[in-house]
């Protein structure tokens, strides 16, 4: 118990500037009948890696879509760096330039090359004429090639996106997001379908980018083991509700939601939930 107290973030450090994302009692729905998310409260520190896990249909993707303004809460509040995510909010629209979003289906453009897909991340920095004529400034192309190398796609820049393997496509989507010079990265199950080694390679890539860019990453995962390995915090979503918020400290799994559960209790609860 003592140890748990110690390892939880101390209340002194909860200065609000540290918080980049704050959701307070958020509800949202696709239709008027059911809520896809119910009473979600989340607060995420700048620079951390935050993971979201849960069964299929629990609302993970919906949660990400709330964070970049693609969906709007029907109740509750969300603040991203003090701005309310909403396409109609001019301030937020500027912030979107620096929010990298990788949807579950990646959203690559099939018929253009890898390099062109990556350069899309630079579009907010381009003028009207430049973007109309696809005239990317030299330094943007250099930057894109640097990122291409960083994500391990060297030599594939002129491949059409549809000619890539699943893992390579994910790397392109990551590179496109990096090209935005993001402060926030929202990634929806980008490693779920990959083999063990490739998944870890990609997670390591994001971890190192987090260090160099002071990036806050919010990632949806399938595998709680992998989530605990890389994330500072893991939120477990079930039927639209956050039932657990946990993290690893030393060799213990810590309950950040209520602060009461022990590692054993958490694991038991989680395995019970996933059996249902």
């Amino acid at each position: 118990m003592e140890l748990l107290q110690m390892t939880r973030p101390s209340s002194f450090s909860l200065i609000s500037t540290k918080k980049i994302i704050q959701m307070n009692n958020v509800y949202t729905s696709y239709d008027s009948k059911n809520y896809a998310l119910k009473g979600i409260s989340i607060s995420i520190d700048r620079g951390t890696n935050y993971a979201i896990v849960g069964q299929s249909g629990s609302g993970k993707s919906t949660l990400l879509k709330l964070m970049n303004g693609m969906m709007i809460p029907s109740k509750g509040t969300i603040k991203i760096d003090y701005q309310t995510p909403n396409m109609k909010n001019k301030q937020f629209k500027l912030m979107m330039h620096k929010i990298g979003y990788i949807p579950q289906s990646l959203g690559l453009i099939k018929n253009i090359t890898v390099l062109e897909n990556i350069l899309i991340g630079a579009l907010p920095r381009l003028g009207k004429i430049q973007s109309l004529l696809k005239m990317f400034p030299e330094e943007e192309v250099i930057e894109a090639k640097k990122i291409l190398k960083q994500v391990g796609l060297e030599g594939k820049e002129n491949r059409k996106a549809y000619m890539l393997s699943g893992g390579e496509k994910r790397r392109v989507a990551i590179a496109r997001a990096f090209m935005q010079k993001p402060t926030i990265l929202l990634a929806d199950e980008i490693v779920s379908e990959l083999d063990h080694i490739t998944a870890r390679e990609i997670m390591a890539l994001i971890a190192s980018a987090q260090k160099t860019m002071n990036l806050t990453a919010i990632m949806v995962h399938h595998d709680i083991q992998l989530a605990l390995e890389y994330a500072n915090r893991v939120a477990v979503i079930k039927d639209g509700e956050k039932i657990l918020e946990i993290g690893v400290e030393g060799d213990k799994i810590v309950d950040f939601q209520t602060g009461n559960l022990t590692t054993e209790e958490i694991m038991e609860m989680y395995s019970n939930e996933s059996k249902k």
Partner: protein
Amino acid sequence: MNPKNNIIVGIIIALLFVTSYNIGANPIEFVKGLPNLAIVAEEMTQVEPKLFGTAFLSMFETIQMAFIGTIVGVAISLPLSMFAARNLNSKYVYAPVRAILAAIRTFPSILWAILFVIMVGLGPFAGVLAIIMYTIGFVAKLQYEVIETIDSDPMDAVSSIGVSKWQLIRYVVLPESAPHLLSQMLYMFDYNVRQTSILGLVGAGGIGFYIINYIKFFEYGKAAVFMLVVLVTVLIIDWASVKIRDKYIIKSQHGMKISVK
């Protein structure tokens, strides 16, 4: 077949009889007319080789008309289709544009040709204008339908970067719909060659002028020369479009080579 389907088939057959009676369609007349066809067919075998030169020249004119009509028509319909797509515009933009396109489509090309002959006089230019109008009406419709079925995932992913609508069009809508556009261009060119062949009927240029006139004066042998040239040309265009589609369209959509027997 369930009883409900039987009723529907019954109704369709009944309607067929009623409508045939109304328009005076009579199979017996058709059979009686067959010998006439034989006479025409026989006369058609008396082709006049001298005329092949003229036929090729007028076919060449027809192809040029169809070419200009297709290219200019597609170029105009592209921006129109962007304004007519529901997933890119508000109702106040797409509704009027769609109404205009629908109005354009109500006229067959031959009516446009008459209109333009009145406007710019007899000759191929009137025909070209007619082809352009017809192409706009159809390609714009086909194209906005394609745009509306573009996968929403890349659209969402790119618009979530906060790009402008023009950037979205340039970087997602155009590349995602380009294979369809090429396919529509080929289809339209093929179609336009055929329909330009009849615009001569109203004096709007092309090979149809000769065909119509020789038929009017019962010179089927001469008309046959021109029809033969049209047939060969259409076959060649057909063959060429299959080749182009395989190379650029099918491959770009599935990432594989499809060999055609």
